[in-house]
């Protein structure tokens, strides 16, 4: 069962070849067997999952099933789930149980999905390797000595290892696309404002965006269909109609204009990764696409701009974790100052603390103009680069990550090297554009991701472009050894 895509599972469930309870139990058994080593899940919710599967079976029997009814998925532990712990990968929220569901969680539940549990992640989504999690690193199913990428590393690993049919992720600077690339799965970060941020624990509010992670573009389309749409509880969610993503999957790509930014293929890109990307581009040419080189001249500024804007917002967003109302509180505080200092020093790991410090610094009197304000200006320039590019091309392609999955521990003590893992993904967040990663030819048995960036609200086109390649190639069907 676990080798099936959602489309196939849904068909089997409707045909009553097996029940959702059986399917859910099957996935729970796989999690019990494989997760202790992979550490992709922080919390497994077996009982609620089986109860939901029971309800799904009833709906299937009654003929009231939705497209995702009975499909077992997982949520990144950044989405609040009513009654089920939401840790955000942090000791700070180790005991936190939200009294509400995130909009994305609510919508997927309405669409009938069964939630197996909450997946591991970098603490507060700050990291590119899943090593900053309070619950320990996630192992890449393709090579257990390597990282799965981050911050949605648990979701990516869980899908790659077939521990769930699909999962949710969030992407602030590449946190869906980079782990999707490193784990050989399909992930899409929608346009900023496409999915509601209500109930999604904020890292950097102007960059955070939820999206689906799945085994194929077609599966991702099904999930995004349920997740996307306006939400009055999120002032930044955008009220524009959600197209039928599945209906648009098979459009012909003849005449598709693909732009390859020269800045994405320069120094720092692993030569064999580059070759793999080139192979995929040639496939697109076979499908009738026209390829041209473009320039995104401000790209080199993406990483520095991101590491001003994101920490600035996080330093403020994480101020609520003060040990006063909920979350970690230090033992016997001497006074208020002590309560704040020790609760936060104990509750947050080193990477989160580092970013809070950077953010506090760049917003401080006397530094605001030089850092935050300047970064915001450059952010506009970066968005303008894309605006110009999209007058000439329909989609932009390049690598999702400069290298394949690196060994656990390799960059742990070098934050800047770690930050550069997201060098190709960050710009889409700064501009608010949708971006996607799909698996292409692996290098030394390790997955490589092709990144596809589209214009605002062109998720449908990205899914179409990805789906057409996945019909012609089988890179997305590869399964890690031991997970078959």
């Amino acid at each position: 069962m676990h080798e099936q895509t959602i489309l196939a599972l849904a068909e089997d469930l409707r045909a009553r070849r097996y029940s959702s309870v059986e399917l859910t139990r099957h996935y729970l058994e796989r999690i019990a067997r494989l997760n202790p080593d992979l550490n992709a899940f922080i919390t497994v919710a077996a009982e609620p999952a089986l109860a939901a599967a029971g309800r799904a079976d009833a709906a299937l029997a009654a003929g009231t099933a939705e497209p995702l009814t009975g499909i077992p998925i997982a949520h990144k532990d950044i989405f609040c789930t009513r009654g089920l712990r939401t840790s955000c990968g942090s000791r700070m929220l180790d005991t936190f149980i939200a009294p509400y569901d995130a909009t994305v969680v609510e919508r997927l539940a309405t669409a009938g999905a069964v939630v197996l549990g909450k997946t591991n992640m970098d603490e507060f989504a700050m990291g590119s390797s899943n090593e900053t999690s309070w619950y320990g690193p996630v192992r890449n199913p393709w090579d257990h000595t390597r990282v799965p990428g981050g911050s949605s590393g648990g979701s990516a690993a869980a899908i790659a290892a077939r521990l769930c049919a699909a999962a949710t992720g969030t992407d602030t600077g590449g946190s869906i696309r980079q782990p999707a690339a490193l784990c050989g799965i399909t992930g899409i970060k929608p346009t900023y404002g496409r999915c509601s941020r209500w109930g999604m624990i904020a890292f950097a509010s102007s960059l955070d965006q939820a999206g689906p992670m799945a085994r194929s573009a077609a599966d991702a389309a099904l999930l995004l269909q349920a997740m996307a749409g306006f939400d009055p509880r999120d002032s930044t969610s955008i009220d524009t109609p959600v197209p039928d993503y599945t209906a648009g999957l098979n459009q012909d790509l003849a005449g598709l204009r693909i732009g390859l930014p020269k800045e994405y293929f320069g120094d720092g890109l692993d030569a064999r990764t580059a070759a793999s990307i080139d192979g995929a581009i040639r496939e697109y040419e076979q499908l009738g696409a026209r390829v041209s080189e473009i320039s995104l001249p401000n790209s080199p500024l993406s990483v520095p701009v991101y590491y001003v804007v994101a920490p600035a917002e996080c330093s403020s967003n994480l101020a609520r974790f003060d040990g006063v109302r909920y979350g970690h509180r230090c033992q016997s505080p001497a006074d208020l100052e002590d309560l704040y200092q020790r609760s936060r020093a104990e509750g947050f790991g080193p990477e989160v603390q580092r970013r809070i410090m950077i953010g506090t610094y760049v917003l401080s009197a006397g530094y605001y103009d030089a850092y935050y304000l300047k970064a915001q200006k450059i952010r506009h320039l970066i968005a303008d680069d894309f605006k110009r590019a999209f007058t000439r091309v329909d989609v932009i392609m390049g690598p999702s990550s400069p290298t394949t999955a690196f060994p656990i521990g390799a960059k742990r003590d070098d934050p800047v090297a770690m930050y550069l893992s997201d060098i190709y993904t960050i710009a889409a967040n700064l501009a608010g554009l949708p971006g996607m990663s799909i698996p292409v030819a692996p290098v030394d048995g390790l997955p490589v991701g092709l990144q596809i960036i589209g214009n605002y609200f062109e998720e449908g086109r990205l899914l179409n472009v990805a789906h057409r390649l996945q019909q012609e190639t089988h890179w997305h069907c590869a399964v890690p050894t031991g997970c078959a």
Partner: protein
Amino acid sequence: MQWETVIGLEIHTQLATQSKIFSGAPTRFGAEPNTQACAIDLGLPGVLPVLNAEAVRLAVRFGKAISAEVAERSVFARKNYFYPDLPKGYQISQYEFPIVGEGRVEIVLDDGTVKEIGVTRAHLEEDAGKSLHEDFHGLTGIDLNRAGTPLLEIVSEPDMRSPQEAVAYARKVHQIVRWIGISDGNMQEGSFRVDANVSVRPLGTATFGTRAEIKNINSFRFLERAIQFEVERQIDLLEAGGRVVQETRLYDPDRDETRTMRTKEEANDYRYFPDPDLLPVEVDAALIAAATTDLPELPDAMRERFREDYGIGEYDANLLTASRDLAGYFETVARTSAAPKLAANWISGELAAALNKAGLEITASPVTASQLAGMIQRITDGTISGKIAKQVFESLWNGGGDADTVIATQGLRQITDTGAIETLIDTIIAANPGQVEQYRAGKDKVFGFFVGQVMKQSQGKANPQQVNDLLKQKLAGG
């Protein structure tokens, strides 16, 4: 040395919305702690603010009421600092781009002159919760009912030159916010709180002295005393060769003094930046129209109209427009009685004193506007004298019915029958030959004695003018 006081005020007024500025929780005062705080007010992870449109409408209404520019686009910013009753670790406020720009407010000074005080800006923000230090045995309780309550912070220019001017300005703003219905202005419940920036400088200097900010004053009396104390403290300090330190101070009403709360060095760096969770607020012509269509005649306009239409002085006109209810009461009395000046005198004199003594608002006055008007009509038509009217007023106050009933039942009708008054005068002249002689010998003062006697004998009811005329005649003629 002659010193000049310079004062600017920051007034926080709670907007009269049903729900909070960024959540749907109610804003009612006095509920059990933490029963009016939802997930958003508690700052739980993952929650997001959504702006209350009514708060924007009320802010726009205020802007228009003080002839200020209302910004087409204003921006919410985060003011970051840690405090236990600040759930998110930041307050959502407006910083660089407030919703209301420069405006002005007129105050009337004691001598009746009008002074204009500039309003720099007014911006929307959320209130914090409350820390409760009592009843927790060394711990602090947090009540977040008030967290997220909408506030309009109204910032003045440093245009006031005395504690009295500051109070007049604060009262004026208080008057306006209640007048246009954007706030209940209840000071006991914290719906209207004042911070005063106070400095002194040698008279005639152009630059400002170093200021101290006195925080959270919640009564006009305390405002005057706090500033008075602070001014004296600063002058004493400067005259002793010291210097004023820029700091935040608190006024202690029990000791009638201000004390250091925190110095500039200890002040927070609030690290303001635009709140990425909220879009800029866009106010268009339609919104302005919707917020102002039912805007009533404003107090300044009404004050000037009272002066012109009713011929009353600036000072009285100012007093009578202290609230819409009082102004309405006055207009009813003035129109019904057709004697606006008398109406003004009675309302700002006798009635105001009685209400004040009884601790009543004009809306709860035992003497209705029509009763007072009825009494004034009896003064103007000569039925009663001004003196007797005080007696009638007292009866009206005590529920004696309308003026005519009181006059009839108590027999207070003025004696205007010349014959009756003459009879009285004759009797009195006959009984006091000595005084008559003195008067005729040129001692004019004795005239008063005769008036007094006549009024006494008539129990105050004789028409004073007639008494005067007849007495003069009789005493002269013999």
